[in-house]
Every structure is written in structure tokens, then in C-alpha cells.
């Protein structure tokens, strides 16, 4: 497999865009990425696209619809669906298209439109309720996604002594970065007090300890490294683009399910542990070589759990790192320099690609006030319910 570079990225603003279709937003992001790559659409030889769930079948098929707006050329277009890992996985698929030699240039697009409030149950009329585990969790238990995180969070607090102050600090840390990011939707710097005074949603998680959901779209152009210099002076090399599924004995409370193994030896959120372990192998490095990390902070629980799971510190140690400010830009392990989901809101399918945009900008030293000094290697990680997780390592 040959080396692949990202030669261009584009990001539609995050927010609410009732007058734009998901296709409009995907096209805008794609056009931006192509322009950033100094490459024409007709040079793209393969494409991967993803959305979460919108409408009916057209809303599961964004790729050809976006390509239609760009101009139909007959290239292979793969629609990718791995829940919240989609944005990373569209880049993985595009990477494989180029690394394998099938294409010299591939485009990855991820986009989403979100409802108000809790992400909800997209009804499937084709099958009876009892075979749909996602229906069972809604109807029989009233389990919202944050309720799952809250239960994992409570277990963490009892195991390691994590307090609500740590949960609040996670938000504060992300908001400090969001304030420095002109693209962030939410740019206010929060205080611990404001977070702790926000309404309780799913005890112990309060409103400001969890992210909103929003519309968003992002895109990336990938090219074989040997040809990348034709298009950009700053190619960003893909060190690894991996994907993992759960291991037997997974004990985390996974949204969409109502059962789990009882806690044992399996890493908690094993699909992410697997994806990250494979990423380190593929890139030939370890977490100690990563200069900054983008993770999906759906809630403060994920913010605390993920760096530990990915081997950046010991289990339970994130509490102390947060206390010390180590996860801020300039610290030992900058986490979510973009501001994270806390500062953007989650556009489910697009999150992973938004992370990749940030990593690319950091590695190109285009991040201004939120620049990580001497950034050489960045990592992104996303997790999608019902057993999906993807990792990406990019380097200069």
C-alpha cells in the first residue's frame, strides 16, 4: 500500500441551516476542499460520503447526490454508515482507494442535519418492533443517549473518585479552545460555576457537560503522496486510518442496546481501544508521539475516558491532568484544540471529518491563537453507537 496525503480540506459552518439541503452543505464543503487542494473535481477518481439518518432512502445515499451537483463522472462512490464514526471512516475509505492504487485522487465528504434536543429514534416501518434493539431501548426503557453516558460516568466517579468539578472542568477546557477558534459555533469561555449551575439532564451529567446537536459538513481531498506536491506545498500524510469493532465481553453501556456483559477484563469501549491500537501499529508510533488529540466529547465522561483508553495516561489519571491544565494548548497533552463538540455541537456523521480538518490545519500551522507549537503528529478518534470506532493519525 502506498503512502497517501491529504492535500485539501473544507468545512461548512456548523449551526442550523433550514434553508439548505444536506446536499447543499456537502457540496459547499467539497468545493472548499477542492479549492484548498488546488485541484479540479474532474481529477477526483473515487469518493466516499456519509450522513447519519435523514429522511428516507435518499438520506442514506448522500454520495451520488453530492456528486450529481458537482457533475456526474461515473466514479466509484461509496456511502459510508458507521454512526458517529462516519466522518473518520469516509476518510478511511478514500484512503484505501488511493493507498491501494485504485485511485490517485479521492474525495471524502461527511455531512449531517440534526433534530432539536435529544437525537431520536428514526422509525423503521419494515420490521416488527421486537427485532429492533434501538426501538426496545426507547419504548421499554426511555433510554436517551446521554442516559447511557451518565451511567458509565457514575461508575467512573465511584471507581476513581472523579467529582462533578472534573466534569465541569472538561467543559471549561474545551470552551477555552473554542473561544480561540473563529469557526466554533459557541465561543464563550465557561466557568466551573456556570457549568455546575446548568440544569441536570441525566444525573450526574448537566446540560453544559454534554454537547448540543447541529448541522455541519466537511470534506477532504486525498492524493497519493508521490503526486501530492503538484497540488500543495504542505501535504499532510496519513499515518493510519483504522476502524475497530467491540471485543467479546464489552461492558460499556452502548447506546442502542439494553444489555451488556458485566464488567470484566475487556477495555471499556473496546471498539475504540482496538481502532487506536491498530492505528499505533500502522503508524509505527505510540501515544507518546502524538502532539495533540481530537476526541468526540459528547459529554464530559467521554472527555475523561478517552485519553485513558487510548493510552495517553493511566486509568483515572485524566482527573489530575485536567486539574493541572495539561489538556490545554501549551500543556502536556492538548485535547480538542478545535474546541471539540462542546464548541461546535455534534453533526453526527461529520464530526470525524471536522476533527481531521482541525488536525490538518494544526499540522500546517494555520491555527493562529490556538496553534499547538511544533505540531508534527495529530490523532483523531470517533465512536459510533452499536459497535463502531475509527482512529486517524496524521503527520507532517
Amino acid at each position, binding site marked *: 500500500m502506498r503512502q497517501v496525503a491529504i492535500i485539501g480540506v473544507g468545512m461548512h459552518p456548523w449551526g442550523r441551516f433550514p434553508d439548505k439541503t444536506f446536499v447543499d452543505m456537502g457540496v459547499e464543503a467539497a468545493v472548499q476542499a477542492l479549492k484548498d487542494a488546488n485541484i479540479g473535481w474532474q481529477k477526483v477518481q473515487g469518493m466516499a460520503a456519509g450522513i447519519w439518518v435523514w429522511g428516507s432512502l435518499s438520506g442514506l445515499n448522500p454520495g451520488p447526490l453530492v456528486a450529481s451537483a458537482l457533475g456526474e463522472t461515473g466514479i466509484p462512490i461509496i456511502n459510508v454508515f458507521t454512526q458517529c464514526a462516519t466522518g473518520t471512516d469516509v476518510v478511511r475509505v478514500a484512503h484505501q482507494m488511493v493507498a491501494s492504487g485504485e485511485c490517485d485522487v479521492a474525495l471524502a465528504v461527511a455531512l449531517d442535519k440534526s433534530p432539536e434536543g435529544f437525537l431520536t*429514534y428514526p422509525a423503521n416501518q419494515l420490521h416488527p*418492533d421486537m427485532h429492533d*434493539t434501538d426501538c426496545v431501548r*426507547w*419504548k421499554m426503557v*426511555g433510554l*436517551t443517549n446521554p442516559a447511557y453516558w451518565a451511567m458509565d460516568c457514575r461508575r467512573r466517579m465511584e471507581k476513581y473518585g472523579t467529582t462533578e468539578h472534573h466534569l465541569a472542568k472538561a467543559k471549561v477546557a474545551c470552551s477555552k479552545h473554542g473561544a480561540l477558534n473563529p469557526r466554533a459555533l459557541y465561543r464563550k469561555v465557561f466557568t466551573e460555576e456556570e457549568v455546575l449551575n446548568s*440544569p*441536570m439532564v441525566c444525573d450526574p451529567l448537566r446540560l453544559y457537560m454534554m454537547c448540543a446537536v447541529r448541522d455541519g459538513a466537511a470534506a477532504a481531498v486525498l492524493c497519493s503522496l508521490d503526486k501530492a506536491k503538484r497540488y500543495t506545498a504542505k501535504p499532510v500524510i496519513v499515518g493510519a486510518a483504522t476502524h475497530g469493532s467491540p471485543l467479546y465481553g464489552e461492558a460499556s453501556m452502548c447506546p442502542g442496546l*439494553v444489555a451488556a456483559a458485566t464488567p470484566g477484563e475487556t477495555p471499556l469501549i473496546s471498539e475504540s481501544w482496538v481502532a487506536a491500537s491498530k492505528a499505533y501499529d500502522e503508524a509505527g508510533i505510540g501515544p507518546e508521539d502524538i502532539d495533540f488529540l481530537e476526541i468526540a466529547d459528547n459529554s464530559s465522561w467521554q472527555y475523561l475516558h478517552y485519553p485513558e483508553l487510548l493510552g495517553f495516561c493511566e486509568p483515572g489519571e485524566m482527573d489530575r491532568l485536567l486539574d493541572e491544565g495539561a489538556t490545554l494548548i501549551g500543556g502536556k497533552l492538548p485535547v480538542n484544540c478545535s474546541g471539540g463538540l462542546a464548541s461546535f455541537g455534534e453533526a453526527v456523521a461529520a464530526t470525524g471529518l471536522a476533527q481531521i480538518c482541525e488536525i490538518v490545519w494544526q499540522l500546517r500551522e494555520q491555527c493562529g491563537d490556538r496553534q499547538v507549537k511544533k505540531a508534527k503528529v495529530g490523532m483523531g478518534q470517533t465512536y459510533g453507537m452499536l459497535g463502531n470506532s475509527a482512529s486517524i493519525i496524521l503527520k507532517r
Partner: protein
Amino acid sequence: MNKKTTQKRQIPLIEGLFTWPSDEPHLIGGRCKSCSTYFFPKWLVKHKPNCRERHIEEVLLSRRGKLNSYTIQHYPPPPPFKSPDPFIPYAIGWVSLPEGIAIAGIITGAKLEDLKTHMDVELVVEKAWVDEHGNDALTWKWQPV
């Protein structure tokens, strides 16, 4: 005058997930006899990766377990869940059963402030809400012992 008395019925909201009618209901799970992996619902099959025989059977899960963790839901979930109006915060628990499986369920019969992890709980079947025909639509819940 022809008066029709409609009997209010109690019907599982989704059939086949627990034994009903019953004074001591059980969740209906599945198990592989070869690798001893339990799963719920019974159609969401799990095996150990090296399981050779893959010999699954339906099983009634233990009625008692320990509260592994819980949360209190303070905002009404969206449909298809139906909450009372006005909404009353309710607790959801994750309960570890002796079989090595943990099952989620709404917690009933306890004050929210009395909930503690590791407390003993028992399976009950109770009304989730009243359906469009006026019947009690039932679900399973966990009740502290």
C-alpha cells in the same frame, strides 16, 4: 340501551421480551449452551469467538440482581417513549445478573434520593403508559428489594 363494558387490558408494549401474564415475570433471554454466553433480547445472539457448537436456547433470566449503575432522566425522552404530563424525573438502572449479563430498565418503587449502586433489585412488570385503546402497555422495571 346496549351498554358495552370494555375491560382494561394489560399488554406488553413489545411482545416476547418477558414472561406475561405472571406473578413472577422473567426477562426472556438467550444463551449458548456451549460457550455459556447470555444475551438479551433472545434474538441478539452472542457467542465467544472460539465457540464451536453454537448451541443456542431460550432462557429465563434471573429475577434478582445488583444495581451496577443508574441515572436520573430529568427531561422527557422523545417519541416513541411517552412520559406523563407534567413530566416526572425517573431513574434508569443497569443491573448485573448472576449469569454475567447486565440489563437496563426503569427503576420503580424507590425514592430517587435513596438509590445506591450495588443495591439489590428485583424484576417487576409495570405500566409504561396507557395506549391508544386505553390499555396498560407494560414494560419490565427494576425495583429495589
